[in-house]
């Protein structure tokens, strides 16, 4: 019964025809005579004698909207666990005469009110601040309009906010707030649009993963962001990304708004120690023109980024690395330090579009690094890599296609060489079988389809050295993944497509940020 009264109050009185508003409207004409006053939802004696008397005093008088509002407020003050509203019903006494009902119900009986007391109010208008409403689709604007005239539904308002955010894309932050309406018991729902930075913070990947052929890898970024500044401490024990297993620490500083949205700077320092697979060492003994292994790698990198549009930016910079190279045992001292200095340039594009439930995104990157003698580098080379990724989501369905092509000229240190056969490329193959000391050419791609947490994929690719025969390899697999395979947990079982021994590769882990 209490729930019925509450529902009656919230849906009939506030949402559709708020009694007080109706009373106010009629007050401009001839106010009706109150024939009878009733209090429902609680026993009369829950109210103070004075309040009961004042409510009864309304009987026989023309309806006074202000007095009714004041009495409603007094009910709320005397019974703070309850909410109150009034409704007027035509009286049997004739035209211009009404019965006035005070409807009182307990807050705790309504989940929406328990969560937010403003859920009792009716939405007078829905507004967009910070952007032109016309940039939104008709569908979203229609959903915004659908909130008007209804009791404030926090969940529905949150859903519309998400729809707006999805349409505006990643560079716009959407928040919602409510304000008083122009008349009592009505509110304005406002979606605030705030433009995000043109240059995104560069997040380093954090992950923990197990690969059945390459064992464990882990990395963790601990960032601190203050305004447009970000300082990151970074630790890694990583056998997944390069031919080397590197472990160590790094620190990076980035400012993504140096006076203008269009300019950013970044500096980073890393110190890693290397371990090498025996397959790499053995293969290097046979290799010609490929530099040797090193014990440690210290790097300093500085770059400047210029945003052309919020989606497109380019960076230029420099990287200074010192390698503690391992030399043959007969070499006096056993090691020598080599410089691997390079100039850097990259062009980045990222765009997302579509609505919630039907989203698409595209990300593309071209990067170049060049080492030369005139920047005191012992390695003279140029390295070009282009990458692209397209994703399409419709409800629980997800499709992704990605592609990478890379070319290396000259003599580059091992950390610059390409490989395939890890947790992201040619899954199912082992990079130490395919590319034990890396290659100077690579082309690879993936097609993935997922439904809910289930995923199937097809990977293909080839990595080779200049002058060698190009041999494409393929793999297929399936697995489970979180909401975003590049930014969530995953378990995959991948099968290399080959005629010889059939040995699937399992990879399992969590990856957060830094994905391409």
């Amino acid at each position, binding site marked *: 019964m209490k729930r019925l009264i509450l529902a009656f109050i919230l849906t009939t009185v506030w949402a559709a025809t708020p009694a007080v508003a109706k009373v106010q409207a009629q007050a401009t004409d001839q106010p009706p005579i109150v024939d009878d006053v009733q209090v429902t939802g609680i026993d009369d004696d829950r109210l103070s004698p004075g309040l009961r008397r004042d409510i009864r005093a309304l009987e026989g008088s023309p309806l006074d909207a202000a007095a009714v509002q004041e009495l409603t407020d007094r009910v709320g003050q005397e019974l703070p*666990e309850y909410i109150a509203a009034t409704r007027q019903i035509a009286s049997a006494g004739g035209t211009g005469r009404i019965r006035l009902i005070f409807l009182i119900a307990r807050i705790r009986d309504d989940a929406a009110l*328990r969560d937010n007391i403003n859920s009792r109010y009716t939405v007078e208008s829905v507004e967009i601040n910070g952007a032109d409403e016309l940039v939104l689709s008709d569908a979203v604007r229609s959903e915004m309009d659908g909130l008007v005239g209804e009791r404030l539904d926090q969940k529905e308002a949150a859903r519309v906010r998400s729809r707006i955010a999805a349409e505006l894309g990643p560079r716009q932050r959407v928040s919602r707030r409510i304000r008083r309406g122009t008349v009592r018991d009505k*509110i304005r729902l406002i979606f605030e649009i705030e433009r995000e930075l043109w240059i995104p913070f560069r997040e380093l990947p954090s992950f923990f993963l197990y690969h059945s052929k390459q064992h464990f890898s882990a990395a963790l970024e601990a960032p601190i962001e203050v305004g447009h500044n970000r300082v990151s401490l970074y630790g890694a024990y990583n056998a997944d990304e390069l031919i080397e297993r590197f472990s160590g620490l790094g620190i990076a500083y980035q400012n993504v708004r140096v006076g203008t949205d269009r300019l950013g700077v970044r500096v980073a320092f890393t110190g890693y120690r290397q371990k090498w697979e025996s397959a790499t060492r053995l293969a290097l003994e046979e290799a010609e023109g490929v530099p040797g292994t090193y014990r440690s790698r210290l790097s300093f990198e500085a770059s400047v980024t210029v945003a052309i549009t919020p989606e497109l930016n380019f960076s230029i910079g420099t990287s200074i690395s010192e390698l503690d190279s391992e030399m043959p045992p007969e070499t006096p001292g056993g090691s020598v330090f080599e410089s691997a200095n390079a100039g850097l340039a990259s062009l980045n594009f990222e765009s997302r579009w579509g609505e919630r439930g039907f989203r698409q995104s595209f990300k593309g990157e071209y990067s170049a690094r060049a080492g030369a003698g005139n920047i005191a580098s012992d390695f003279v080379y140029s390295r070009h890599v282009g990458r692209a990724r397209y994703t399409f989501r419709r409800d629980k369905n997800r499709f992704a296609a990605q592609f990478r092509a890379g070319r290396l000229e000259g003599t580059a240190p091992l950390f610059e060489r390409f490989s395939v056969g890890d947790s992201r490329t040619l899954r199912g193959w082992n990079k130490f079988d395919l590319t034990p000391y890396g290659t100077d050419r690579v082309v690879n791609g993936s097609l993935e389809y997922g439904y*809910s*947490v289930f995923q199937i994929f097809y990977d293909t690719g080839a990595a080779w050295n200049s002058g060698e025969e190009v041999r494409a390899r393929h793999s297929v697999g399936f697995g489970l993944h979180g*909401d975003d395979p590049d930014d969530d*947990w995953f378990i995959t079982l991948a099968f290399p497509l080959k005629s010889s021994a059939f040995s699937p590769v399992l990879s399992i882990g*969590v990856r957060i940020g830094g994905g391409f």
Partner: protein
Amino acid sequence: MWVFALIVIGTTLAADPLEPRLDGDRIRVSAPSLRFLVEAPLEHLHNGTSVTFTLTLGLRKGPDVPAAELDTQRCTVSYDLWEEKFAVTHLAPTPSSISHLSAEAAEAWCVDKLSLPIARIANDQPFWLRLEFVEESMADESRDSGPFGLALGNLIDIFSRRGREQLLQGREESGPVRLKDLQ
């Protein structure tokens, strides 16, 4: 005389921030100086968003030992834009709600939901009380969670920019307290 006056003033200023009282076989506290409807949470409330706080009352038998008794309660607060008063819901198995409160009264109502049993405390045994509160992070409305996505989504929030907003938290401590002094 001046020294005596200074001692009195100093003692008054150093009064315990928690005011314990007995309620049957349980102990409750008041914390008149503890304010959590301030700063960012208050701004959220004035914008019509509700904010949830977790409050914990701990009883320790020494100033730096683990709590012998602990009670944790959650309260969701919202601000009625028309009434300009606060409404609070105590998130218990059977929720209770109240409205038309000032900020101080809303805070006090939340604190009053905390209580600890005293059955295992001797009458003359000294103990210390600690009241802590922490603002709960608001749900990220833009994130969908799959069947396993919820916990890992939270993990992602910890390391990514999402959810890095500083959450208000604070504490008050009092002690030593003896039951015989409260009777």
